């Protein structure tokens, strides 16, 4: 009988197919008894990176906490598309309060659980980049400073997408948004100092900080599961492409996310108590153009002429990340 | 109703003084109200506090505009305009000063209701800190006879725990003694 030799091209990941792996290595989503915390029927766009990320993250948290989880959600795409009253696609205990207070609301929930002696119940707060890096920043920093027992997950699609694609402090330089149009002397978003919440979280020296991406869902699950089992403040920052806001193909969401990682623009790393404790090496480095070309929000960098200096500037950011986080090793 | 207005500088315990007076009155079964009036400045700025004492519930909430007694915890305030405003013609004036300041004779109250006492010095001696409020309360008791010294001392202990309470107690009693002796002498001389 002819034997088919299996060639695993993408080694070091779990994308070779869950069925071929031992159970303990499989993604949570492959399990028949997965929680489906974020159930079907929500109103997200086709190819939404955030819906994908949230589904994996919350199911991982439910699994790790054995179902003892309460979630506080900031205002944003995820909250809006998941709870079109009178329907809700959440199968878990979930609450939405305001835009800027998810971290504080979660602190309150955690305090209630503690006072009631329910130490098995874990609390997770989640929000987009707007609700985390901008309007939610004060509450987040307060939570970190007190080391409140909350896992905060940020789904970063680099803009205020729910309200129509406006610029946030997480929007990358040169990106076109509704409030940073691609025109004038400095088309798209300005080149500022940036605002890395993972690094700020590390400055707070909280027990656990990690970045993750929908390009590596098993890694996302793993980080969330480990974080859920820890105590004190934990922060996971997930990169989630938004086809609508980024102008990318809905079918390219994971591809675009992977390119962000492989260029070095979105480094995957983790830290404990302020010190880097691990990172995911780039398997095959690519120039930033490969990533930028797939997104209409960067189209002005290529047409009518290639904007060499700006692309170089973006490349420099990628190079800096690679060096800083030692991403080639 | 007996109304007291206390003037001093921030950090001298002006507010505590009014509070202790109110506690002393309460301990005697009376109704009392004490409240402060200060601006946004810090230590050293002029502050006022008020205390009302009555045998029935006190409903009035305005500042004390017609004091029956004035306690002036800092003699450098004597030049302030309006310091003596509203003082009852039969009122009491108690000043923290080891000597009689100039112009005291102009104070519009009966001579025997006027008293200067080196409260800061007494406080330094007994408490080791220049906080004259407890001392002045001891003097107040002897001067006006409106509150028993025992009530004042108990109020002091409620406010200041342990050794500090004991020290302030001693200081207040010392002041009370001094004032009583002075008044008895003055009485004797008058007769």
């Amino acid at each position: 009988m002819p034997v088919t030799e299996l060639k695993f091209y993408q080694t070091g990941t779990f994308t070779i197919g869950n069925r071929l792996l031992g159970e303990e290595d499989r993604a949570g989503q492959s399990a028949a008894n997965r929680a489906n915390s974020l159930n079907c029927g929500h109103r997200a766009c086709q190819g939404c990176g955030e819906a994908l990320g949230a589904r994996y993250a919350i199911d991982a948290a439910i699994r790790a906490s054995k179902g003892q989880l309460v979630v506080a959600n900031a205002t944003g795409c995820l909250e809006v598309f998941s709870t079109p009253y009178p329907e809700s696609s959440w199968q878990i205990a979930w609450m939405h309060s305001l835009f800027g207070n998810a971290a504080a609301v979660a602190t309150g929930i955690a305090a209630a659980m503690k006072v009631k002696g329910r130490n098995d119940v874990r609390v997770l707060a989640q929000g987009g980049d707007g609700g985390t890096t901008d309007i939610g920043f004060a509450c987040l920093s307060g939570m970190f400073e007190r080391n409140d027992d909350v896992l905060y997950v940020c789904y970063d699609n680099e803009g205020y997408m729910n309200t129509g694609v406006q610029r946030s402090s997480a929007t990358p330089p040169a990106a076109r948004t509704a409030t940073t149009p691609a025109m004038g002397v400095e088309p798209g978003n300005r080149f500022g100092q940036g605002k890395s919440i993972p690094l700020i979280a590390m400055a707070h020296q909280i027990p656990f900080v990690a970045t993750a991406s929908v390009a590596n869902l098993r890694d996302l699950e793993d980080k969330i599961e480990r974080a859920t089992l820890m105590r004190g403040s934990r922060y996971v920052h997930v990169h989630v492409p938004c086809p609508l806001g980024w102008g990318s193909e809905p079918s390219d969401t994971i591809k675009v996310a992977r390119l962000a990682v492989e260029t070095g623009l979105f480094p995957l790393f983790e830290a404990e108590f302020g010190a880097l404790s691990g990172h995911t090496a780039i398997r095959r480095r690519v120039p930033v153009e490969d990533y930028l070309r797939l997104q209409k929000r960067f189209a002005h960098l290529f047409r009518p002429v290639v904007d060499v200096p700006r692309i170089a500037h973006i490349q420099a950011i990628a190079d800096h990340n690679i060096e800083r986080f030692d991403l080639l090793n | 109703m007996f109304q007291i207005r206390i003037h001093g500088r921030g950090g001298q315990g002006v507010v505590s003084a009014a509070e202790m007076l109110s506690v002393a009155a309460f301990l005697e079964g009376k109704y009392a109200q004490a409240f402060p009036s200060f601006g946004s400045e810090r230590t050293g700025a002029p502050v006022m506090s008020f205390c009302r004492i009555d045998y029935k519930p006190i409903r009035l909430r305005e500042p004390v505009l017609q004091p029956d007694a004035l306690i002036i915890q800092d003699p450098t305030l004597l030049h302030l305009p309006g310091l003596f405003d509203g003082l009852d013609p039969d009122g009491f004036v108690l000043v923290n000063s080891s000597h009689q300041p100039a112009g005291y004779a102009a104070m519009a109250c009966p001579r025997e209701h006027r008293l200067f006492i080196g409260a800061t010095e007494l406080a330094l001696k007994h408490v080791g800190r220049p906080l004259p409020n407890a001392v002045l309360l001891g003097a107040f008791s002897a001067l006006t006879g409106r509150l028993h010294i025992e009530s004042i001392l108990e109020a002091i202990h409620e406010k200041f725990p342990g050794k500090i309470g004991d020290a302030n107690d001693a200081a207040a009693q010392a002041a009370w003694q001094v004032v009583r002796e002075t008044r008895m002498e003055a009485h004797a001389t008058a007769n």
Partner: protein
Amino acid sequence: MLRQIEGSRAVAESVALCRPEVICAYPITPQTHIVEGLGEMVKSGQLKGCDFINVESEFAALSVAIGSSAAGARSYTATASQGLLYMAEAVYNASGLGLPIVMTIGNRAIGAPINIWNDHSDSMSMRDAGWLQLHAETNQEAADLHIQAFKLAEELSLPVMVCMDGFILTHAYERVDVPTQQQVDAFLPPFAPRQVLDPAAPLSIGAMVGPEAFMEVRYLDHQKQSQALELIPELSREFRDAFGRDSGGLLRGYRATDADTLVVAMGSVNGTIQETVDQLRAEGMKIGSVSLCSYRPFPAEALRRALGCASEIVVVEKCVAVGMGGILSMEIRNALSGLPLTVSTVVAGLGGRAITQKALRAVFQRAQFGQLQPLTFLGLNENVVSRELERQRDRRHSGPPAENILRDLRSPVCP
């Protein structure tokens, strides 16, 4: 037990007796002594089963309370003035989500100009937010209202603001009867919410409600306040039976039944008003007063009954709707519409300006003879304001009034 203590302390101890489970606090004058007192009680172990969290802003404070209340914990916070505004979004959120949070407002003026002293502009700014708002006349009532507030809030699933005048009550030492733990336990049962965040029974709270249902939701909010109109007097009666004193309720009359002139006010100024009423009654004037305790819900019918037989109503209020006039007076006028009486507004005590018996007396006497203006600012320094107004007529330069007044004081003729 009878104690001579600071108002803030009385409130802290009363709140502690209510067995709160989560207290989150951000300091702001004049509420600081309340939260400091509670923090101390938690740390010392006097108040057990309670988590005291120091948060980084008032917005965070109420947000934490929202989370803990939604998770079934009895929650409390306190603020004033600027802090209340900073948490405004959360204020509306808490009532919209039906969370029975109790919050003390140490009534303080809102800037600019910055001012730390008492008036009612802060709680007034949130009058439409769907919270219940109760005003305390004395420190005894302030303490008692907190105990009633938790019961009221949890019965209706609605948050309650207990308003007490900053400095005048918060920082005043007076006699307060602080109840025992047994008394409070007998009056206030444990918090048992209908809807709670619990993994054992998952649900989604806080969904986006669209045009198809929003009207109904707000209508029901409005109706709930009407339910409060019944419950508040009922609780006050229950309180009297349990604790032996009158506290709370919708409103209280003082020598009001046969009065021709009736004064209405909220909070501590009622004490001074009652003294003035006694003085004028002794001189033969038929005057009385009504202390309004429940501002929200607004007891229109009860006010109509209490005020309807007088001919002159004087509303003394510590707030003003700049550009419109008296806020409380407008609502009272509304409640009394159709009746043959005059309602005059006396705006008093703004930014902590002392309200004196003398000034009130003059105003009440003018009212008696129908000589009171529709709107009076009590004790206004006419000299200062007329100079500024005159200057504005001559030369229109923009700038804030406070600083403009100083410029004019420096030189009568401005450059």
